[in-house]
C-alpha cells in the first residue's frame, strides 16, 4: 500500500484528518502490538494517540500529520511502558508472593497473534497456511527487535517516512535512524534465514 504524503502547507481539514486516521489506524495498531504484545493495550494506545492528535494537533498542516501521529504513537507506547514499570514496582513491593519468573522474557508472541479472518476463503488453504506461518515468523522477528530498531524500521519502511521525518518522530538524529534501520534489516534477515524463510 502506497502512503501518500501531501506537501502543501494548508491546514488539515476534517475530511483529511478522518481519511488519514482511517488509513493509518490498522498499521498503528500493529505497531503497538509489536511493541506491547497485548491487543487491549495496543487498542488503548492507538485510541489515545488518535485523541491526542485531534485534540492538540488538528490545526496543523495535513502534510505534518503522518510525522506528528507517529511521534504521538511512539510517545504513547513509551508512556505505556513507563506506567507498566511503575505498576510492576508497586505490585512487587506489595505482593510478598511476587516471583521473578513473570517477566516478559518468557513471552511467546505467537500466542497473541490474531487468527486469520475468513476473507480469503476462496484461496488455496495450503498457500494461506504458508502465508500465515511466514507472517507469524516476520511479526515474531519484529517483536524481538530492540524497540528503537523496530520503531526506526517500521517508520522508515512501513510508514514510508523519510529519514528526517523518522528522526523527528523518534526524537533522535538522522544518523541514529540510519544506524537503527541498518541494524534492524540485518537482524531481521538473520532471524528469517534461521527460520528458513526467503521473501
Amino acid at each position, binding site marked *: *500500500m502506497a502512503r501518500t504524503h501531501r506537501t502543501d502547507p494548508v*491546514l488539515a*481539514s*476534517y*475530511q483529511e*484528518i*478522518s481519511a488519514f*486516521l*482511517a488509513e493509518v*489506524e*490498522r*498499521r498503528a*495498531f*500493529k505497531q503497538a502490538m509489536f511493541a506491547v504484545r497485548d*491487543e487491549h493495550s495496543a*487498542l488503548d494506545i*492507538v*485510541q489515545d494517540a*488518535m*485523541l491526542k*492528535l*485531534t*485534540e492538540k494537533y*488538528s*490545526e496543523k498542516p495535513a502534510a505534518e500529520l503522518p510525522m506528528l501521529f507517529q511521534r504521538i504513537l511512539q510517545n504513547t507506547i513509551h508512556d505505556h511502558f513507563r506506567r507498566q514499570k511503575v505498576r510492576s514496582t508497586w505490585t512487587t513491593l506489595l505482593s510478598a508472593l511476587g516471583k521473578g519468573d513473570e517477566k516478559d522474557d518468557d513471552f511467546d508472541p505467537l500466542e497473541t497473534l*490474531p*487468527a*486469520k*479472518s475468513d*476473507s*480469503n476463503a476462496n484461496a488455496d488453504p495450503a498457500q494461506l497456511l504458508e*502465508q500465515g506461518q*511466514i*507472517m507469524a515468523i*516476520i*511479526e515474531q522477528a*519484529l517483536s524481538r527487535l530492540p524497540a528503537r530498531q523496530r520503531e526506526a*524500521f*517500521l517508520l*522508515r*519502511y*512501513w510508514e*514510508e517516512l523519510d529519514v528526517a521525518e523518522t528522526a523527528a518522530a523518534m526524537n533522535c538524529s538522522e544518523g541514529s535512524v*540510519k544506524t537503527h*534501520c*541498518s541494524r534492524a*534489516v*540485518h537482524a*531481521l*534477515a538473520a532471524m528469517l534465514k534461521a527460520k528458513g524463510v526467503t*521473501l
Partner: protein
Amino acid sequence: MTTEDTDFAKKIAARLDQGAADLKAGTVYRLQLARQEALARLSDPKRAAELRLAGAHALAGSGTLGGDRRSWASGRLWIGIALIVVAGFGIQQWQAYQQLKDIEETDAAILTSDLPIDAYLDRGFQNWLKRAIDE
C-alpha cells in the same frame, strides 16, 4: 544500506501490509470506534471550519468570536491576578495591625501592673522569673 537491504525491507513492509489487512473484525470495529471518538473531539465539519475562521480573524486582530473569547480569558486572568494582589495586601495590613495591637496590650499591661517598671531591668528579677516559669 545497500539496494538489497532496501528491497528486503520493502518486501517485509509488503508482508506487514497483508497482516494489517487481515485484522480480526472485532479489532477493526474497535479501531473504527476509536477513530470516531477522536473525530468527535474535532466537532462537526461546519463547527471546525467556523472555529478555524474565528481563529484566523483573531490572529488578524479583528473582533470576532475567537477574539472576544481570548480577550475574555485574558480579562479573567488579570482579574484573578488583581484579586491575589489585593488579598496579599489585605493580609499584610491585618498582620501589621495585629502586631501593633499586641504591643499596645503588652505596654498597657506593664504600665498598669503593680510591679515597678524598673523591675524588668533588674537581672535578679529576670532570673527569678525564668526559674519560676521552668518550675
